[in-house]
C-alpha cells in the first residue's frame, strides 16, 4: 500500500545506529555538502557551474513558475534550489515541452500528481491526453507504452513503487528490451520507466526494494539512477530524449533533499550535456581509497568520507555511477589504480549484483594496482525486512567505514 503515500517520511523511533552515525546526522543538518568538483565538471559537468547559459524561452520559464508556485527562478539565471522531487518535476515539464509526442502514464500521476508528486501540475498544463491516469495494471502500463511508442509517441511510465514493477516484468524484459533487436533495428521504443526505489523511509512491505540488477541483466535496456537534484533534472530529460528504453530509478529517500539545479532545458544545453546519460562522475576527490555507489547511497558514502577525513585522516574518493547499464567504469578503474583500494556500496543484496560486476571488472582491469580485494557493502541477501529493522539492513556510515578499515588491513 501505498504508502504512497510516504510523504510522511520515516517511522519514528528508529535510532541512529551509533555515535558515528549521529555525528554524521548532525553534520548533514548543518548544511548542504559541496556539490560537484572540478574533476567531475571536466568529465561531464552536471554538478557545478556549466556554460549552460540562459537559453530558456520565456514561455518555458513561465510554465515552470506555474508548476512551482514559488516563482523562485532568478532574474536572468536558470539556477534554482530545488528538492530532488521538484527537480524531476521540472525536468519532466521540460521534456513534455520539448516534444509534443511525450506522454506521461501511470497510476495516480494525473489529478493527484503521483503519490510522490513528481508529476504534480503536469496534467493541468498538458491535459488528460498527455498525462494519463491509467487503470491499476502495471503490465498494461508498460505493454501499452510499447504500442504507443510504435505509433510514434514517447511514453514516460511511472511505476508507483519498486515492489510493483514485477507484474510488468514480461513486458519490460521480453518485449520492451528486445523489440529493437528482433526488428533488426527497424523499431525504436523510446520508453522511459520511472521507478521510485530503495529503502530508508519506514515503509511497509514492497515499498523499499532495489530491483536494478534484474534490469541490468537484461540486454536492450539502459538503466540509470540519479543521486542529487542537478542530475535528476538533467538525467530525466536525457532519459526521455533517449531512443532506447530507459529504466529510470529514483532514490525515494532523497526526494526531499535540496540542491542547486541548472534548469536550462536540455535542448538549450551544449551537445555533450544532452547525451551524457551513460557517464559516471567523481563527486568527492580523494587519494587513499575509492568508494563507488549510486542513487541513495551516494549521500551515505559522502557522509562516510567526511567522517573518514575527520576521524581517521583518510581521504576517500567517492564516485557516483549514475549509469548502471551500461556501466561507465573508466573513472572507477582510473581512481582505483591511484588509490589501490575499492569499496562498492549499494542497498540491493550482494548476490549477482552491481557490485559483483564492478568487482569482477575492476579486478580484470586494475589487478596489479590493487592493494586489497574489492570489498562490498550491500543490503543483506534476505528479503527487505520490516521497517523497524531497516537500519540494520541498509548500508550505513559504520558499515562503509568498516569496509574501508578492512581494505586497509590487507
Amino acid at each position, binding site marked *: 500500500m501505498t504508502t504512497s503515500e510516504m510523504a510522511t517520511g520515516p517511522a519514528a523511533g528508529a535510532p541512529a545506529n551509533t555515535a558515528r552515525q549521529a555525528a554524521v546526522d548532525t553534520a548533514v543538518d548543518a548544511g548542504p555538502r559541496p556539490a560537484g568538483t572540478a574533476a567531475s565538471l571536466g568529465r561531464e559537468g552536471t554538478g557545478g557551474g556549466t556554460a549552460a547559459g540562459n537559453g530558456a524561452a520565456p514561455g518555458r520559464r513561465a510554465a515552470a513558475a506555474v508548476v512551482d508556485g514559488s516563482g523562485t527562478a532568478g532574474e536572468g539565471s536558470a539556477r534554482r534550489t530545488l528538492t530532488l522531487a521538484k527537480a524531476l518535476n521540472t525536468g519532466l515539464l521540460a521534456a513534455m515541452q520539448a516534444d509534443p509526442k511525450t506522454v506521461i502514464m501511470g497510476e495516480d500521476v494525473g489529478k493527484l500528481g503521483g503519490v510522490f508528486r513528481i508529476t504534480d501540475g503536469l496534467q493541468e498544463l498538458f491535459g488528460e491526453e498527455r498525462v494519463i491516469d491509467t487503470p491499476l495494471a502495471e503490465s498494461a502500463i508498460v505493454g501499452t507504452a510499447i504500442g504507443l511508442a510504435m505509433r510514434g509517441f514517447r511514453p514516460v511510465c511511472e511505476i508507483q513503487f519498486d515492489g510493483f514493477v514485477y507484474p510488468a516484468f514480461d513486458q519490460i524484459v521480453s518485449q520492451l528490451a528486445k523489440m529493437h533487436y528482433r526488428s533488426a533495428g527497424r523499431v525504436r521504443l523510446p520508453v522511459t520507466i520511472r521507478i521510485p526505489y530503495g529503502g530508508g523511509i519506514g515503509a*511497509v512491505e514492497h515499498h523499499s526494494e532495489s530491483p536494478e540488477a534484474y534490469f541490468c541483466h537484461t540486454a536492450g535496456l539502459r538503466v540509470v539512477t540519479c543521486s542529487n537534484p542537478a542530475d535528476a533534472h538533467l538525467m530525466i530529460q536525457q532519459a526521455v530524449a533517449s531512443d532506447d528504453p530507459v529504466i529510470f530509478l529514483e532514490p525515494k529517500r532523497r526526494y526531499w533533499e535540496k540542491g542547486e539545479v541548472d534548469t536550462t532545458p536540455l535542448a538549450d544545453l551544449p551537445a555533450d550535456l544532452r547525451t551524457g546519460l551513460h557517464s559516471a562522475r567523481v563527486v568527492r576527490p580523494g587519494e587513499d581509497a575509492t568508494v563507488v555507489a549510486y542513487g541513495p547511497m551516494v549521500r551515505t558514502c559522502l557522509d562516510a568520507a567526511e567522517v573518514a577525513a575527520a576521524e581517521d585522516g583518510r581521504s576517500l574518493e567517492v564516485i557516483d555511477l549514475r549509469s548502471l547499464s551500461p556501466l561507465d567504469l573508466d573513472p572507477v578503474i582510473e581512481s582505483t589504480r591511484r588509490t589501490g583500494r575499492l569499496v562498492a556500496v549499494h542497498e540491493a543484496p550482494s548476490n549477482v549484483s552491481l557490485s559483483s560486476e564492478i568487482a569482477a571488472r575492476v579486478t580484470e582491469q586494475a589487478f596489479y594496482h590493487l592493494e586489497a580485494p574489492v570489498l562490498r557493502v550491500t543490503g543483506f541477501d534476505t528479503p527487505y525486512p520490516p521497517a523497524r529493522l531497516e537500519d540494520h539492513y541498509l548500508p550505513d556510515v559504520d558499515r562503509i567505514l568498516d569496509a574501508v578499515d578492512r581494505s586497509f588491513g590487507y
Partner: protein
Amino acid sequence: MFAGVTELVQLLTPDGRRTTAASASGPEAEYQAHVADVTDDELVGLLRDMTIVRRLDDEGTALQRQGELSLWASLRGQEAAQIGSGRALGPDDMAFPSYREHGVAWCRGVDPLNVFGLFRGSSLGGWDPQEHGFALYAIVVGSQTLHATGYAMGVTRDHGEGAVISYFGDGASSEGDVSEAFGWASVFSAPLVFFCQNNQWAISEPYRRQSRVPVYQRARGFGFPSVRVDGNDVLATLAVTRWALQQARAGAGPVLVEALTYRINPHTTADDPSRYRPADELSTWRRRDPLDRLRTYLRARDVLTDELESSIAAEADAVAADLRARCLALPDPPEDSVFDHVQVTENSLVATERAAYTDLRGALL
C-alpha cells in the same frame, strides 16, 4: 444463473427499515432466506463487531499520527462489508485478504496487535494463516486472488469441507492477476467467492477509470454468477456471502460478489483526498453509514437500548485501550531476526552475512 444482474441486494434500507420477504422481489427473497435464522442477539453481535473494528480503526489513525505506526489504511465506511462477509465464514473456510481487511481479521480471531505490528514496521505479517483461516495481507494489489484460486483448487482435490473467499478492491479488478484468477476459478469450478469491496476509489482514481461496466458484471464473460450487494448493509452482505459460500461448497463453482461501499477516509494516512475527491460525495456517503443503519433498525424494535449501546461503546474503548497499550509496548524485533526464515533450509550466504554482521555490531557496541 445470473443472480441480481441489475439489483443492489438490500435487506436494511439506509433509514434502517428491514425489507421484508413479502416486499422483496425476486432474488432478494432468496437472500432473505439465508438470514431468516439470525436472532436479535446475533444482530447486536454484528453491531458490536462493527463498533469495535471502527474503534480499532480510529486507534490506528491516531497511533499513526503519534508516530507509533508508519502508516494506516483505514476501513471506515466498509465495516458492514467486512463484518457481514467475515461472519458468514465458517471455521473450515479460508480467506485471502488485501491490506484493508482489518474487520475480516477480527472475525477470524487474528489479534489486532498483529495487524498493528505490520503497520508499525515490526513484522511483515505476524499471524499463522492456517490457524486462523486467514492468509497474510497482500500489498501487491490483486496477487492474492490467484493464491485463493489455487487454494480452492486444492480444496476440491482434497474433497475438503470449506470454501475460499478472496477479497480485493475495485482498483485491483484491473490487474491481470485478477482476470486470470476469474478464468482459472471458472474452468476448474473452484469453490471460491471473489469478494470485491468497491469503495469507488483506488487512491485517486474513481472506478470509471477501471471499467465501463460494474464490477459484478465482469463475471459474466468468465461464465460464473455474480451479485451486487449493498456493502453498507451488514445483513444483506451476510446473506449474500452465505449464499455464495453455499454455492461454492456445493460444487457450483465460483461466485463474484460486489459489495458497493465507500472509502470514507483517505486511502492511507499518507494520502490527501482533497486533491481529487469532491466533498459532496463524502457527505452523501456519510449519510449511508453502515453502523447507523443497524442501530436505527435495532432501536426502532427496542432491541438496542441506551444501556446496551453504551456497554458496547465501553467494550470497544476497552479493546482499543488494551490494543494501544500493547502496541506501545511492542519491542522492536531482535536485530538479527533480519536473517531468520529466509528459507527452510539454511542458506550459507545468509549464514555468513549473519555472522559478519553480529561481529561488526559487537565491535561497534
